[in-house]
């Protein structure tokens, strides 16, 4: 259902503001994501990365500014949010699989209910994806019988089963034991190789350097600095970016 966007952006944020009570989390975000681009959002906790992604998926309504997806303003009044969300997948730090459903049911629920696929079509689609990501033998398990890495891969498959144009990944490896991070990152690499447009909030700097077409450093609710990963990681211009990256290096995470 991808629309032609020859000269448009897949996602464009213009002056997006978002507050929770008195706390202003996003203070005017401008960002254009081209088709097939992979943007990594880096920055300290509380810098607004997650909120930004949640706004793009309309989980959080924006207070000011607009978000345009494939030339349609999704933040306009009266937009069918369910239709918009069907084409924008999001994966959460804490997986948020449905604990009372098998892996297969987790994945087929939305295609059946929101896309009106038949059970057979939805299951065929789910099983194909599960096979691709090495989870076919887990399809009849309940989520809590799976490792964290398997759960997160299942959550990614659940989002992919809707065949979204855009994927939003919100610190998807932060809740995982270190030895389980790689299997999830490999899935994301495969998505990037397949041309998926992605917005990724992450603390995995090595991964961001590998995969990103562009890196944005968020600080206190604004994009302080953005550029190709080589430039951001090797020669950051802003003092705050330098300090942030320095602290990451000192923590041994890069």
């Amino acid at each position, binding site marked *: 259902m991808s629309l032609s966007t020859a000269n448009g952006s897949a996602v464009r944020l213009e002056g997006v503001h978002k507050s929770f009570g008195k706390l202003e989390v996003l203070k005017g975000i401008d960002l254009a994501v081209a088709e097939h681009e992979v943007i990594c959002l880096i920055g300290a906790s509380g810098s607004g990365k997650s909120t930004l992604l*949640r706004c793009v*998926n309309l*989980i959080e309504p924006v207070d000011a500014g607009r978000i345009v997806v494939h030339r349609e303003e999704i933040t306009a009044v009266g937009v069918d*949010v*369910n*239709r*918009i*969300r*069907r084409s924008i*997948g*999001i994966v*959460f730090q*804490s*997986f*948020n*699989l*449905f*604990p*009372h459903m098998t892996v297969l049911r987790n994945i087929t*629920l*939305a295609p059946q*209910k*929101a*896309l009106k696929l038949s059970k057979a079509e939805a299951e065929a689609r789910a099983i194909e994806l599960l096979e691709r990501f090495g989870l076919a033998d887990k399809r009849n398990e*309940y*989520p*809590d*019988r799976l490792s*964290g890495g398997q*759960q997160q891969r299942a959550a990614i498959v*659940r*989002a992919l089963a*809707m065949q979204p144009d855009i994927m939003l990944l919100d610190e998807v490896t932060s*809740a995982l034991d270190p030895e389980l991070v790689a299997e999830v990152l490999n899935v994301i690499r495969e998505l990037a190789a397949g041309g998926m447009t992605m917005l990724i909030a992450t603390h995995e700097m090595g991964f961001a350097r590998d995969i990103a077409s562009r890196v944005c450093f968020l600080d206190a609710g604004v994009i302080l600095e953005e550029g190709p990963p080589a430039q951001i990681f090797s020669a950051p211009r802003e003092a705050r970016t330098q300090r942030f990256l320095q602290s990451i290096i000192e923590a041994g995470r890069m």
Partner: protein
Amino acid sequence: MASGGGGEIHRAQYLPGDPRLPEGRPTSRILAPLRAEGARGVALAVMSTVVVLGLLAWFVVRSENWPVVREAFFNWTEFKDTFPEIVRRFGRNVQFFLIAEVFILALALLLAVMRSLPGPVFFPIRVMSIVYTDLFRGVPTVLIVYLLAFGVPSLRLPGVPNDPAFWAVIALILSYSAYVSEVYRAGIESVHPSQVAAARSLGLTRWTTLRHVVIPQAVRRVIPPLLNDFVALQKDTALIAFVVAVPEAFKMAQIQVAADFNYTPLLGAALLFLLITVPLTRTVDWLIGRERGRRQGGGGL
């Protein structure tokens, strides 16, 4: 109980009554201390029980009036003569209970869902649910039974049943729905908002999310308190005795008391209620204990 620790982030999310639960050995908080103490503990427990019960019995029996009381309440011949009829009538209590319970579970869920609808548009619906719950929880059930069972039939409305038993059951349904809806509501509110966010982010509507994600998890979580209300309802079917001509167990017992000037039939009726309520209560305790064990034990795979 499994040892604590583990410190895992992704807690297993088994709920009571979940068929996936491994058959764990439920620990009873009554008997567990005995197991820990071994044979000596068991012997001590038996001795102390015998002494306590013996003292109590002696205290009661030595009363001057005991022969009279024994004759009035513990008359074996009277029991043998009246019990079968009370058992037969008790079927009616079970029938009332089962019919009422089905409607209570449905109506209460509707009320709970009405109350959990968000946003200003649904304000009147939320208020209706709150007013209903406040009204029916605020009035003694026995009063509602009286008001409906005697009030409605005397209106002589065309096409409306005028059987007091019918309206007594309706009264139980209305009253208990208010309590049970609060149980459901607690369950609905216990489902983490991230579950709703995940469902809505997939493009599922609010209704589909409620139907397939929130309610199934909520109901599983509140099965023990729901069973508690089952126990209470089963007992309260005796309230119907106050308003109906066709006797259920309690009414039958009262009739026999009046006929023979002997109170033993009441004990027979009490025994029958215990036969249902005690196993139900034990089941609730067992489910709650299992749930607690799962939480504390860290619930390994």
